[in-house]
């Protein structure tokens, strides 16, 4: 089913690891050059920046070409739909051809073509089959269902983890067509993701230490995050993307009390389970999702219980996060050789330093804008907010 041969992908992975290890000084220059020759791959890759730009220009070209087809002639919606379906097939075939013929691997072009094929498929179904039909929610659910199926197929065929994420997003919209009960919608989405999680957990156990492990790890992390977000009913009160998640902010009274309190228990149970799974599997992405879920639970606990938020809540959260980081680091450092239970706080990969350097530059530029929320003072005399000073602030938001 996979478009790339396992030997090609395994070779690429070996090449990347060699580069990383050579950068860390684990290999001599001569050894690196020698081993690099043995890991020559037939796949054509590029760096992340060219990949992004190639993706962008492929989208522009394909989008403009499709629009050009319809301009002037004023076709009916059915015609647009039929041609969109044809474009979907053409884009998908072009993506397969680009990989088969040119050996493109995460090159931007084939990725944009597959993205276009999903978009055209959804638009095609909408215009060709649903535009003139009377309101039929079950029929309308065809659009997200088809999008999800094609995205899943692309994930299996090309290995794009974000295609799986796209399928999850399509899945969010499906229950809305089947039931009007919001509780049921949350439950159905959580069940979707839980089913996917079981499937992934079974499959990935066969791929320990091979080239597929990272992809499965990312997909499992997406699913854990999806389950958490589906059961946390209060995230909407934090102005998180509730608008697209479940069509607006929800009032807790719309949920049955047992359901509401069950989800409250679950949002406390899930983070430790995810963290434990991530630590057991030594899975970076799952650990990250466990940590994110834990922070989100802290943040959404008060709204769940109906308690008021305080301005010092973020201070306490900051102290907890810093305290946990320092405790873990010290605990690991005190182990023999700085290692405990197979974990270390030491840096072992050059990639980590690259991430920290890039992140510190980027977030350093952004953080002054975000550290202080909008002011709301009780007295007109006290006007702390809205100031433009504050050095790094450089911001009227400060």
């Amino acid at each position: 089913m996979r478009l790339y041969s396992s030997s090609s992908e395994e070779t690429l992975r070996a090449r990347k690891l060699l580069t990383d290890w050579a950068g860390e000084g684990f290999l001599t220059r001569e050894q690196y050059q020698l081993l690099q020759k043995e890991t020559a791959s037939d796949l054509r890759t590029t760096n992340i920046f060219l990949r992004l730009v190639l993706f962008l220009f492929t989208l522009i070209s394909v989008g403009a070409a499709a629009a050009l087809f319809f301009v002037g002639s004023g076709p009916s919606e059915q015609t647009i739909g039929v041609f969109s379906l044809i474009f979907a097939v053409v884009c998908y075939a072009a993506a397969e051809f680009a990989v088969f013929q040119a050996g493109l691997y995460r090159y931007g072009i084939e990725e944009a073509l597959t993205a276009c094929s999903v978009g055209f498929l959804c638009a095609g179904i909408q215009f060709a089959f649903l535009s003139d039909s009377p309101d039929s929610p079950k029929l309308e659910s065809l659009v997200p269902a088809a999008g999800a199926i094609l995205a899943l197929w692309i994930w299996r065929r090309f290995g794009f983890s974000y295609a799986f994420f796209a399928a999850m997003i399509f899945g969010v919209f499906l229950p809305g067509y089947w039931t009007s009960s919001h509780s049921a919608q949350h439950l159905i989405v959580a069940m979707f993701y839980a089913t996917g999680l079981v499937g992934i957990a079974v499959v990935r156990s066969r791929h320990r230490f091979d080239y597929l492990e990272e992809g499965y790890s990312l997909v499992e992390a997406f699913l854990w995050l999806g389950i958490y977000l589906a059961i946390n009913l209060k995230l909407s009160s934090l102005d998180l993307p509730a608008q697209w998640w479940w069509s607006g902010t929800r009032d807790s009274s719309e949920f049955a009390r047992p359901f509401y309190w069950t989800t409250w228990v679950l949002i406390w149970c899930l983070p430790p389970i995810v963290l434990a799974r991530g630590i057991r599997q030594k899975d970076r992405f799952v650990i990250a999702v466990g940590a994110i879920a834990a922070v989100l639970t802290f943040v959404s606990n008060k709204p769940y219980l109906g308690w008021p938020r305080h301005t010092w809540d973020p201070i306490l959260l900051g102290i907890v996060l810093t305290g946990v980081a320092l405790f873990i680091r010290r605990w690991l450092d005190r182990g023999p050789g700085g290692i405990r239970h197979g974990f270390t706080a030491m840096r072992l990969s050059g990639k980590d330093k690259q991430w920290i350097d890039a992140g510190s530059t980027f977030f350093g530029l952004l953080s002054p804008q975000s550290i202080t929320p909008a002011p709301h003072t009780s007295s007109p005399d006290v006007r702390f907010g809205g100031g433009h000073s504050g050095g790094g602030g450089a911001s009227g938001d400060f």
Partner: protein
Amino acid sequence: MTILTRLKQWKEQSKISPEQHAHMAGLARGEPFSLFLELNVLLYAGVLAFVGGLGWTVSTWSEQIGDIVVLTVLSSILAACSWYCFSRAPVWSPAETPAPSPIFDYVLYLGSLVWCVELAYLENRFRLLSGRLDPYLLATAGLFFFLAYRFDNRFVLSLGLSSLAGWFGLKISHWSAHQDAAYRQCALLYSLLLGVGGALLQRRGLKPHFFGTYLNVVANVLFWALLSGVFNRQGYGVWLFALLITCGASLAWGLTRRQFAFVAYAAVYGYVGVSSMFLRSVNDQTVVLSYFVVTGVAMLAVLVQIGRRFGRTG
């Protein structure tokens, strides 16, 4: 063949030593598994949440708490951070210096952000400079640059760059049409100063690893400024010319130094600028769409060639 099998094979062929094999096979299996990145992210998030809450609390409750308590608390944190950093810092070196402790960078970052909060509080409560913000921003930028170079810290360097941008009057949310020319001038001056300053510091060997940060900020500010000129209804020719020259320079730099972010900047900003010029008087949808098809494919062809020749790695 998995990486573990390969490593075993290379060991048997004596291409790597048994010690290297043991070490790298362990790494490939995640033994030991490094939590370095996760712990750093946790520390960063903790500092940010703490200072965010501090700013929020101070701005909301300053009247009830009282100026003395607020300033005492903020000054105490600031003093503690300063004491920690200056007492733990190694001897200064112009080369890249590792942090003396894992939390050092975050203590410095905390101190810098608390400085921002305290300064903002002082000015807004006591109007020490009658609401004039420029001296604060310039002094703060100077302080942050000093701290960044003294302690070799990119977080604080970025704070210094954004403070200096503030002093130059750069703030995207204030970028309204009627002030375009003034902001453009500020942006160009800022880019020039930063570019020349960064290059001089690099040539003198003063923390040369910071140069990449300078260049990325300079490139983006400069491209935005030039693009805003190209979008003008009149007198855009000179801005387009300047944009093309900058794109050429960015492309050349990116290709020779294998820093492909600059190739991407040249491609995207250049395309936007040239397209806006070509399409500004075109109303025919067919022509516009044809333009995007033809130029999009042309850009793809050029970028694929660049990718083939230069961009496999990185």
